[in-house]
């Protein structure tokens, strides 16, 4: 059957949106199906994100806007899947888009209907904490920005139709059914938060001041119902003592789920920190069992929370909450580590609710014929976390297991990476290539400015005197036409603008209406269709930042609008047509590191038909995984890795360089040239490539502590695993003590190595399997078996493995008497105890190859974090990208990761790289910076200041902007001591012209 170059993505949260963007940029049509009325999912509900405290909407909104206007992405909102059939490469899906009763094409998102709706319905987005009209938009920054009528609440009064000047409301609109032909599917359904309704002992739904963490997220949000102030729902007072409870519905088979929800430890900590930031006097206490801060820089965050913000941690699970009726305060009872029952009173309690499989997982699984796991999540293949049981149907994000945002984004791109493998033969077959007329040459011509002032229904016209503004615009220099429209953004006005451009020979266009953040691309497209360069368009915002915010001062608002139009005209007169150029791309990838991540990536590239080079410093491929025999889940790694090596070696498109070192990497995205030496003779060669993947991996920490190396029966987990699989030595041991966090979470290596808890439990279970009589004791600080790994922690305890906790300050002491080893430890629960042992196993952590990483980081000009792992472009949303374009990272180079996580990252990095390699040429230029060599002194300030490494020194020592890397932020212009740099479209002259126009001065 013929393959189809389109992909169906079910669920448009951050995962689905990321996958859609990757695929759309790699030459496929993406259908993004969303069950609610706007994309963005849970992330758009969040206030801040850990561990950087980034504002969630600030970072996600540009991405959603991009998805919303991408020509290759077709967003279907309010949609359900009816049926699905076919083969990988050629599937058919039938969907229904349920009616919004509002015409998406006509709705401008102005919001008048919502304001005039006399019905107050519950606002789901704010988690039931505030009210909105029956016609509403999900949140102010929603994409697509259309309103929808909620028939459950609507009484059918018809007022909205009356007030909608855009005539978008149509009560007769029916559900729309359509059939979509696609080559592959990505399921990115997200999760549902655990509903603690059945947990009577916590009083959720009964006591007003017990809220869930996601409700608290809305409470914290500056745009939430409480405007970011922490208020008690019972009486609106500000709480002092606030308790956060971990593991509500997680690690709790009785009331919730058996597994660990992975993210709650971090988000509760974040919520505590942000709450403290918002309300100074707040005293947050977090009740936790283990603190599972296993991600990159997570432990540092927890430490900061404790030390800088005074967040108090108590190790305990709360047994019950009761309300004090008079004050509505809450009494918490718990058992402390010493076994004492303690009662404390709090003003407010936040339940750290876990992540459940999405409610529609079962329905979707049936429709798509994919398996669910024992917990109801979509079952992912072992060692391939983005593949489902059905070929051609992929999965990403929290619908396959609980995970955080970066892991979701990694899997989203990872799934896109796997889609690439199937559909690369039909790339570019279904994307829309638009033909434009030739651009009109305006050089040397007198500016002829056309101004279009928008009424926006009554949104602008109701407060600003639009005709007056229009008349005023006519008096401004070079303005040859000033017009006004009811809705400048409507389809018929676009035709009108194009006609006027021709009729009046206009060569600069200004629209005075809403915000350029959402509407500039639309008008740029319009003038381009009329033959004008996109940069000849100028927008000024007289709605969001004028009419709406000065409703009671119409005269002043009108004056302001006139000023803004004058400023826009001043700038518009000197706006220039900017050229874009095509830059050829070398469709080859260079991969540094031949471990699991590097090899997985290389095979993916090869399967897509791209060539790949692997640069491996050792004599053989395989890396760290060569020493691993089995995963916690029981997958055979030796078999897997040998198979992978075989595939790589037999693949024609992959060229492997062993014992290889990189000498130089030159060039930039699409056009790198590297010099590599390899083999025993250090043969040197030059390689051309379009992208770089950093997959340099990590090493096992060699313990300096606990008598390691001095006594033969003190070994590391890796050594234990080898012995378990290659000898019967361990079966003879009677008493085995394992010590966790060796070389992790200490002053030298302050981070968690993520994998060691699972390693220890895996080996402990194996020992028990081989010799049930053996005593196994694991000394730990926190057991971090996140996600479904929790099952094995439980199993280990059931099998008699003993777990004893110690504090960082009081590590176990080892003493040796003859052949006998004694481990003494101070436990909170049991006091001082001494264990006799004939084998001590150290769970040594993972460390970055610091030296190698430092050299490489300097060479490709990308940063490392404090622990010498590579630092990605953005911790949340660009986890496998570097700020410098064309360079990506995956695997342990990024930080400690399991094998299956490394594989996901590898496919993810490939997908990101494919957005470049799949294009014959990259479009560069436009609003970028340019250096005037006659003025440049070569001081290099701009080179250092450019966040994207876009500026380099040329042969003569002058600064030179690599247009392919420049993002047009203008930092260099503002910083150059000689003012030798011009940032196009935001030049000094252009910005100054606006300033002078405001001052009433003539334009320079």
């Amino acid at each position, binding site marked *: 059957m013929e393959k189809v170059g389109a992909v169906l993505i079910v669920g448009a949260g951050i995962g689905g949106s990321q996958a859609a963007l990757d695929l759309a940029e790699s030459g496929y049509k993406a259908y993004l199906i969303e069950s609610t009325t706007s994309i963005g999912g849970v992330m758009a509900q969040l206030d801040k994100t850990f561990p950087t405290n980034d504002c969630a909407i600030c970072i996600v909104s540009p991405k959603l806007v991009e998805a919303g206007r991408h020509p290759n992405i077709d967003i279907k909102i309010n949609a359900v899947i009816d049926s699905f059939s076919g083969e990988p490469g050629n599937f058919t899906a039938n969907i229904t888009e349920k009616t919004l009763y509002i015409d998406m094409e006509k709705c401008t998102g102005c919001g008048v209907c919502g304001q005039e709706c006399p*019905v107050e319905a519950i606002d789901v987005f704010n988690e039931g904490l*505030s*009210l909105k009209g029956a016609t509403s938009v999900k949140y102010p920054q929603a994409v697509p920005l259309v309103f929808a009528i909620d028939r459950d609440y609507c*009484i059918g009064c*018809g*007022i909205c139709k009356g007030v909608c000047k855009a005539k978008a409301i149509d009560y007769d609109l029916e559900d729309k059914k359509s059939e979509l032909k696609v080559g592959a599917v990505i399921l990115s359904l997200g999760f549902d938060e655990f509903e603690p309704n059945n947990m009577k002992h916590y009083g959720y739904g009964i006591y*007003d001041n017990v809220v869930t963490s996601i409700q608290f997220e809305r409470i914290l949000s500056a745009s939430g119902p*409480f405007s970011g102030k922490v208020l008690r729902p019972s009486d*609106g007072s500000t709480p002092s003592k606030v308790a956060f409870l971990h593991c509500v519905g997680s690690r709790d088979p009785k009331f919730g789920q058996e597994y660990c929800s992975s993210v709650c430890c971090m988000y509760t900590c974040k919520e505590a920190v942000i709450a403290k930031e918002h309300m100074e006097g707040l005293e947050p206490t977090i009740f936790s069992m283990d603190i599972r801060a296993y991600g990159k820089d997570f432990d540092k965050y927890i430490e900061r929370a404790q030390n800088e913000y005074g967040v108090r941690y108590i190790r305990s699970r709360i047994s019950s909450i009761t309300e004090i009726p008079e004050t509505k305060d809450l009494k918490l009872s718990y058992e402390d580590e010493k076994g004492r029952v303690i009662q404390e009173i709090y003003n407010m309690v936040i339940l750290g609710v876990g992540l459940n499989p999405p409610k529609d997982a079962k329905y979707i699984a049936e429709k798509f014929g994919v398996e669910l796991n024992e917990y109801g999540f979509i079952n992912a293949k072992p060692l391939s976390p983005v593949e489902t049981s059905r070929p051609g149907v992929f999965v990403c994000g929290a619908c396959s297991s609980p995970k955080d945002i970066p892991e979701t984004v990694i899997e989203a791109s990872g799934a896109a990476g796997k889609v690439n493998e199937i559909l690369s033969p039909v790339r570019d077959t279904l994307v829309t290539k638009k033909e434009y007329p030739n651009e009109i040459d305006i050089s040397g011509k007198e500016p002829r400015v056309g101004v279009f002032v928008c009424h926006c229904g009554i949104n602008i016209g109701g407060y600003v005197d639009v005709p007056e503004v229009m008349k005023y615009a006519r008096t401004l220099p070079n303005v040859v036409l000033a017009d006004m429209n009811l809705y400048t953004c409507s389809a018929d006005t676009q035709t009108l603008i194009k006609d006027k451009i021709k009729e009046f020979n206009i060569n600069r266009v200004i629209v005075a209406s809403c915000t350029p953040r959402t509407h500039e691309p639309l008008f740029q497209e319009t003038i381009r269709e009329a033959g004008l360069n996109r940069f000849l368009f100028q927008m000024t915002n007289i709605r969001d930042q004028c009419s709406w915010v000065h409703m009671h001062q119409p005269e002043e608002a009108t004056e302001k609008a006139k000023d803004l139009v004058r400023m826009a005209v001043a700038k518009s007169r000197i706006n220039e047509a900017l050229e874009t150029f095509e830059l050829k791309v070398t469709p080859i990838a260079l991969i540094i590191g031949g471990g699991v991540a590097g090899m997985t990536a290389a095979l993916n590239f090869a399967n897509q038909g791209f060539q790949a080079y692997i640069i491996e410093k050792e004599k053989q491929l395989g890396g760290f995984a060569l020493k691993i025999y089995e995963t916690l889940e029981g997958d055979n790694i030796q078999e897997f890795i040998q198979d992978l090596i075989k595939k790589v070696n037999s693949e024609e498109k992959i060229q492997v360089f062993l014992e290889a070192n990189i000498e130089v990497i030159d060039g930039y995205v699409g056009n790198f040239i590297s010099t590599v030496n390899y083999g025993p003779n250090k043969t040197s060669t030059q390689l051309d490539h379009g992208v770089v993947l950093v997959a340099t991996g990590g090493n096992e920490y060699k313990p300096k502590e606990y008598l390691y190396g001095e006594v033969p029966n003190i070994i590391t987990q890796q050594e234990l695993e080898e012995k378990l699989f290659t000898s019967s030595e361990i079966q003879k041991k009677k008493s085995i003590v394992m010590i966790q966090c060796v070389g992790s979470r200490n002053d030298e290596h302050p981070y968690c190595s993520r994998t060691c808890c699972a390693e220890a439990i895996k080996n402990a279970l194996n020992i028990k399997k081989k010799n049930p009589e053996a005593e196994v004791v694991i000394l730990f600080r926190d057991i971090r078996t996140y996600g479904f790994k929790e099952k094995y922690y439980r199993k280990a305890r059931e099998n008699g493995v003993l777990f004893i906790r110690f504090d960082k300050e009081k590590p176990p002491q080892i003493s040796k008497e003859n052949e006998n080893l004694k481990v003494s430890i101070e436990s909170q629960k049991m006091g001082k105890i001494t264990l006799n042992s004939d084998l001590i196993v150290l769970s040594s952590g993972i460390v970055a190859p610091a030296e190698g990483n430092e050299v490489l980081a300097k060479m490709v000009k990308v940063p490392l974090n404090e622990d010498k792992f590579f630092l990605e472009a953005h911790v949340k949303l660009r986890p496998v990208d570097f700020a410098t374009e064309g360079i990506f990272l995956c695997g342990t180079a990024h930080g400690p990761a399991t094998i299956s996580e490394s594989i996901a990252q590898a496919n993810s990095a490939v997908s990101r790289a494919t957005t470049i390699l799949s294009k014959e040429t990259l479009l560069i230029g436009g609003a970028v910076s340019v250096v005037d060599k006659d003025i440049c002194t070569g001081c290099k300030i701009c080179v250092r200041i450019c966040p994207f490494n876009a500026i380099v020194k040329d042969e003569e020592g002058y600064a030179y902007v690599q247009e392919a890397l420049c993002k047009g932020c203008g930092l260099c212009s503002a910083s150059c001591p000689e003012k030798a740099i011009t940032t196009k479209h935001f030049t000094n002259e252009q910005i100054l012209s606006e300033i002078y126009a405001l001052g009433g001065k003539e334009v320079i």
Partner: protein
Amino acid sequence: MSFEPRILGFLCNWCSYAGADLAGVSRIQYPPNIRVIRVMCSGRVDPEFIFKALKLGIDGVIITGCHPGDCHYIEGNYEAVKKFELVQKLLSKLNMEKRIRLEWVSASEGNRFAEVITDFTNQIKELGPSPLSGKDLDMELMEKLEALEMAAESYRLRALVGRERKITEQENVYGEKYPKEKFDNLFDAAINNEYIRNRILLSLEKNPKSVKDLATQLNIDSKEILNHILVLKGRNQVAMEDIIENQPIYLNVMER
């Protein structure tokens, strides 16, 4: 001295006013307490008129219009019912709903007019003077009435009253009849909410207060007050001024 109430009557021009005239022509006697304002249609009686009258200490207000089906303007009297019901529902919050009445009197019912007026006058006599008449005004009650008036004037309630008949008796925009019971629930909740919100606004107009202060003053659960405050904040009618001893203090920022 016995109490002689002051009664205001709104009479529609075509039926009731004619009926009153007929009572006169027929020399039918009825108590002299009523003062009549002639309106073209009973549906013309804006709820505001009733509130204004009550605020001035008028003891009773009666509206009379054509019988159902007889309206000169076809259905004006049905609209009068809806408006009257709104006012009645609002006034019941202050136990003042008995001080207003709506009756149908045709041009031929001079007798009935006299009877209705007599009966209503007696009823008001029995109720005694309006608590808002006389010298010692009950300022708290006045404020409550003010809040009711503001609620009745609110866009939301006026919009609901304006559409009620269309959507519950004929058909709504989806071609269905919206169940009367459901509408009533929604309407009653809206009435209650808007009344309390306006009480909050009036209270905050005097001086800024915390949710707790408002809850005590209005004798309403603080959680409910908080929800109203949030709505009012969303409408940009109140704002948080300060936080004193864990209590956020709100003030009225409405421009009237």
